[in-house]
């Protein structure tokens, strides 16, 4: 089935259209809000806009579900190119769409009760913009995960990046936040510039911007040096998005400076989208002769590049996290380390193994545990607790629920059984060991060693909470009900997926099986332009 035309594609773009409508609605309500509800009484901006955003997300999710279930496979297959080949509509993309809706939903819930994100002092007048920007980021994430063309990929990436800059600098009163935004925008600009330059070289070689076209092009395969230059430049862009070493340096500063809900968002959403793009790129755009398959398994550079990246990323991330006092910064480094583990899955992917499945699985577990950990920081910050490790002293007695839940997330992040993180790591490592080349074995061992190192800083936080005494006069801490409820909702799968991971694994399998990483829309009509 050839690519669908613009009009035919609209149906499959409905979730994105819902998001766009939501964004516009929020902006309009924000403009006329004064007249609509503020004068009449105490409805706060953040509640109105937060609710609008959450409703938009739910509706988008429902529409996504409806579109998929109302269109029989026989009529329009699950893997089809839409908008003339610019985007794909496939199970892989749908998996990520649900994922992003989930992330945004949780972040939205977090943000509604976080002074860090939305300043309460001026009648939280920034709330409308905040939620509009968040939804726009989600739109960009959708685009990144479904893009099968350089142009749309880049557009999605920039959409996410630009919204990210604004969100990182959203705390206008906080100089750290502004600094974070500045570093982010400069770094992001350079990285995406480098990536664009790489993409331009690929375009020059292949004569097309379609990822499948690049793969099919003979010229691309014929010029290895140019291809490698292009790919390394492109990897700079991907590396920036997923925060892998050596393109990670923005990450700790931005994570520390940005409002905590935004940090949580950035640490999960764009990272996952980056991996979605990476899988599509490596699965769909690079010529097979240079992908590690068959005879070229040992000589091909991609596994080596990715493996080296993964090794450095894990190690640097974990080592840097060791001495951190600021919890957000610690989580920033930890998220770098997790990007390393995820890259291991990509190494396995280029070995022809079940790598992409493990990446999808890992990302979902990462969603629960990382958002959970950040939500704890947010909930405690709302009660006036600082962001340093020492501020958490004696939390075990001050609020046992929060302390226990945080411990669950921490142990899951470490990868201890029976938590979800264990299952994720287990799958990644076993995907890696499906082809036990010496490099893969080395990487797996390094991964385990790194997990052991990470135990140190995660467990330190647990130790501080339960074994150190709180400062004099520190009473019990209360958190908002919505935070506690969301934490519970996040903690349950964190445990559950560690014990019973079959359904999620099946879902990941489904997403891969429908031909996802392979780029759809190779037959995009380019003649006549």
């Amino acid at each position: 089935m050839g690519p669908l035309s613009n009009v035919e594609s609209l149906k499959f773009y409905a979730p994105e259209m819902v998001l766009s409508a939501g964004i516009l609605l929020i902006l309009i309500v924000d403009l006329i809000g004064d007249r609509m509800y503020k004068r009449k009484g105490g409805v706060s901006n953040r509640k109105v806009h937060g609710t609008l955003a959450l409703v938009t997300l739910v509706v988008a999710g429902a529409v996504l579900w409806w579109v998929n279930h109302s269109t029989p496979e026989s009529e329009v297959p699950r893997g089809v190119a839409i908008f003339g080949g610019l985007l794909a509509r496939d199970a892989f993309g749908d998996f990520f769409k649900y994922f992003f809706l989930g992330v945004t939903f949780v972040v939205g819930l977090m943000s509604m009760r976080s002074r860090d994100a939305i300043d309460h002092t001026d009648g939280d007048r920034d709330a409308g913009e905040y939620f509009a920007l968040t939804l726009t980021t989600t739109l960009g994430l959708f685009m990144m995960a479904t893009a099968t063309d350089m142009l749309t990929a880049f557009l999605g990436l920039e959409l996410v990046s630009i919204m990210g800059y604004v969100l990182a600098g959203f705390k206008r009163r906080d100089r750290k936040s502004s600094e974070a935004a500045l570093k982010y925008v400069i770094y992001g600009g350079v990285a995406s510039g480098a990536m664009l330059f790489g993409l331009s070289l690929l375009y020059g070689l292949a004569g097309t911007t379609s990822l499948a076209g690049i793969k099919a092009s003979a010229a691309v395969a014929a010029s290895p040096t140019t291809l490698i230059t292009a790919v390394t430049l492109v990897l700079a862009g991907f590396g920036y998005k997923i925060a892998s070493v050596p393109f990670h340096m923005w990450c700790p500063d931005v994570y520390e400076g940005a409002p905590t809900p935004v940090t949580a968002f950035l640490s999960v959403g764009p990272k996952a989208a980056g991996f979605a793009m990476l899988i599509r790129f490596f699965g769909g755009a690079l010529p097979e002769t240079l992908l590690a398959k068959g005879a070229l398994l040992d000589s091909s550079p991609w596994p080596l590049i990715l493996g080296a990246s993964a090794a450095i990323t894990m190690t640097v991330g974990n080592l840097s996290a060791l001495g951190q006092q600021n919890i957000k910064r610690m989580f920033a480094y930890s998220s770098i380390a997790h990007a390393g583990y995820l890259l291991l899955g990509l190494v396995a992917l280029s070995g022809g193994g079940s790598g992409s499945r493990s990446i999808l699985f890992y990302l979902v577990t990462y969603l629960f545990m990382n958002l959970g950990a950040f939500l704890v920081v947010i909930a405690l910050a709302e009660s006036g607790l600082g962001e340093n490790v020492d501020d958490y002293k004696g939390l075990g007695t001050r609020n046992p629920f929060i302390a226990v839940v945080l411990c669950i997330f921490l142990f899951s992040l470490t990868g201890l059984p029976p938590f979800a993180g264990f299952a994720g790591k287990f799958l990644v490592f076993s995907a890696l060991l499906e082809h036990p080349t010496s490099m893969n074995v080395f990487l797996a061992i390094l991964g385990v060693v790194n997990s052991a190192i990470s135990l140190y800083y995660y467990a330190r936080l647990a130790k501080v909470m339960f074994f150190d005494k709180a400062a004099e006069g520190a009473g019990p801490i209360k958190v908002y009900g919505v935070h506690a409820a969301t934490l519970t909702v996040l903690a349950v799968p964190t445990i559950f997926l560690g014990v019973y991971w079959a359904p999620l694994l099946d879902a990941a399998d489904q997403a891969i099986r429908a031909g996802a990483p392979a780029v759809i829309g190779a037959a995009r009509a380019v003649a006549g332009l």
Partner: protein
Amino acid sequence: MDFISMITPEALVFFGLATLAVAGALGVALASNILYSGFALMATLGGVAGLYLFIGLDFLGIAQLLIYVGGILVLILFAVLLTNRIGAVNVTNVSAPRALGGAGALGLLGLLTHVAVKTDWVLTTPVSTPTTARIGDAFLREYLLPFEVASIVLLMSLVGAMVIARRAVRDRPLPPVQGATAPVDGAERLL
């Protein structure tokens, strides 16, 4: 060999424009005053626009002029002026140690030039026809979706820029009470 005869007017024009662009780039890199850097950037952008027009990419050249030179550059100059007291002597444009950066940039340059020269690009015979109509057509057909998404990008960028630049802080302490509504200054709300 007749060196002079090889220099066609075409070549002259190209090298003029290329020199303008490259010199501008070097000016951005090396100028000691940020204002000079700004003007050097203008030269580069203009040069690149000229290069577009040189190979008949009329729409692109004009767009480059209009958006870059007319929009972005003005924005940059505004920023320069807003963040530097012109009256003050040092309109700072200090550089970090240049050796390492220079080495990296030179390495990159070498690599990219190597790629540019050595690769067997599959060339066609270029034809120069007016592109505006074709681009307009493409935006409404093949690239309708990116075109529409770009509008969202621009809209939200404006909103974002407004949020960030909004002059809300008058260095007043944060009121501790949650939900307390400070009187909203109408002028402040606009920017």
